[in-house]
């Protein structure tokens, strides 16, 4: 782990796929953001529409003038699934695990996929409140989620 703060063991074992920025630069700002522990999604400078994943133009008004909005990192579980059958060789010993689809109410309810940290058999409900947790790897940082305590 190259960052000295808020680090954690990775949710998935070594050998699981890691992300890399798209070669065309489309999502460079997003991955640079996670590297700096900032959760950025696109926001159209012309009409204010939020957008994730990144696109070259605004899907609402077609403006190419798109900026980046820093989210609070708070979200809600929109859907979730507990995976029992591994389909990748690196995950054979990792099941079960929990994948969550998180919506971000302070960014137009755009959604992101991640894992829900903690016991994979924990009770999780659609609507549960979560906050982002940064998972630093050598050259890239993943966005993970944990339930907000005391909800």
């Amino acid at each position, binding site marked *: 782990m190259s960052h000295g703060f808020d680090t954690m063991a990775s949710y*998935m074992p070594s050998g699981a*796929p890691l992300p890399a920025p798209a070669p065309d630069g489309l999502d460079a700002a997003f991955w640079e953001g996670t590297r700096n522990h900032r959760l950025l999604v696109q926001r159209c400078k012309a009409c204010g529409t939020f957008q994730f*994943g990144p696109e070259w133009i605004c899907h609402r008004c077609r403006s190419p003038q798109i900026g980046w909005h820093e989210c609070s990192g708070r979200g809600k579980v929109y*859907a*979730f699934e507990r*995976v029992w059958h591994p*389909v990748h060789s690196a995950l054979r010993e990792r099941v079960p695990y929990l994948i969550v*689809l998180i919506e971000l109410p302070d960014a137009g309810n755009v959604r*992101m996929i991640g894992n829900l940290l903690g016991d994979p058999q924990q009770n999780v409900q659609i609507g549960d409140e979560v906050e982002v947790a940064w998972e630093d790897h050598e050259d890239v940082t*993943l966005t993970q989620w944990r339930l907000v305590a005391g909800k």
Partner: protein
Amino acid sequence: MTDYSIKDKVTIVGIGETRYYKAGQAPVSEFQLALEAIQKAVADAGLRIEDVDGFASYSDDRNDPTRLAGALGIPQIQFSNMHWGGGGGGMAGAVGNAAAAIVAGYAKHVVAFRALAQGQFGRFGQGHAGARVRGAQAYTAPYGLMSPAQMFAMRTQRFMYEHNISQEALAGIALASYKHAQRNPRAIMYGRPLTREAYDNSRWIVEPFHLFDCCQENDGSAAVVLTTTERARDLPHKPVYLMAAAQGSGYRQWVTAHNDPDYATSNFKTLAPRLFGMAGITPQDVDVAQIYENFTGGVLMSIVEHGFCTADEAEAFCTRGNLEWPEGNLPINTSGGNLAEAYMHGLELVLEGVRQLRGDSTCQVKDARVCLVAAGPMVSPVSNLLLRN
């Protein structure tokens, strides 16, 4: 007034398939499987191979028309077509595209086909992600979301939440397919009935999908031959008319990272009204339905989005044998479908639709006049057909 619709102008005149095998067990190459199914379908149509002048397929089928035509000695190709999109979403679309070519006059005898030998080329159900993933995959694969089951369980979970639907509905769909397969000697699951207890006790693949909620992966090939309704009158079988065909997708379906504005959908909401509109009938006129099961959850949503019931009625509609032949109000997947006959990427469902309307099904719906075939669910684009006799 000019009628731009394909309605009733094209007829399915021939069907053919190879024996179906478990994944990796085909004793011959995928290309040989394709050749066999195509030749059987042409023979079934009472046509000569030399009559074939077009091919349509989907999901990046590897057996391209140039190679097929060369191997089969076909004098000329007048139409060759690939329907975009992975999964089985193009199954009905390939048939619809073949029909469009015939109505447009591009070709007269078009084969729509699919061949799969996953043992030779890799399976859909495995994660193929490399060490580094980019683009849309970068937002999903690092979190262990890689396989089709994992992509679609999330949507299904949301749909069940929104409409208070329990596991009962999914079980009802799986049990119907397996029940029908017990009468179909072609089916991989012939002689392997599924009980409710076995369904409940089967392992989770990804909640809410048990093992039996997931399609098989198989080797084999299936093909259909289409021609003009006029030409079909000279051919041996009872004609099966293409009443309507539709393909496409709704607003921003499958934008990256599961951001589809309408998320918990089979993606048939925009297609179904067009399909029924073209045919000039309503869901109540459908006697039997063949609905692509990648996973039972997609069938559940497809039933709702084709107007057979509301989402809030869906659990009652899919249980108590309502989808089972012969007693149910809407028998589905009467050959066993992708779950229990064979996973020919859904093309076997078109063949079964034709059998129903010829009166040849092993679960023959009495006096069946109209059959729905739906391809894809939860992918983009999806496609569907209405067939009649």
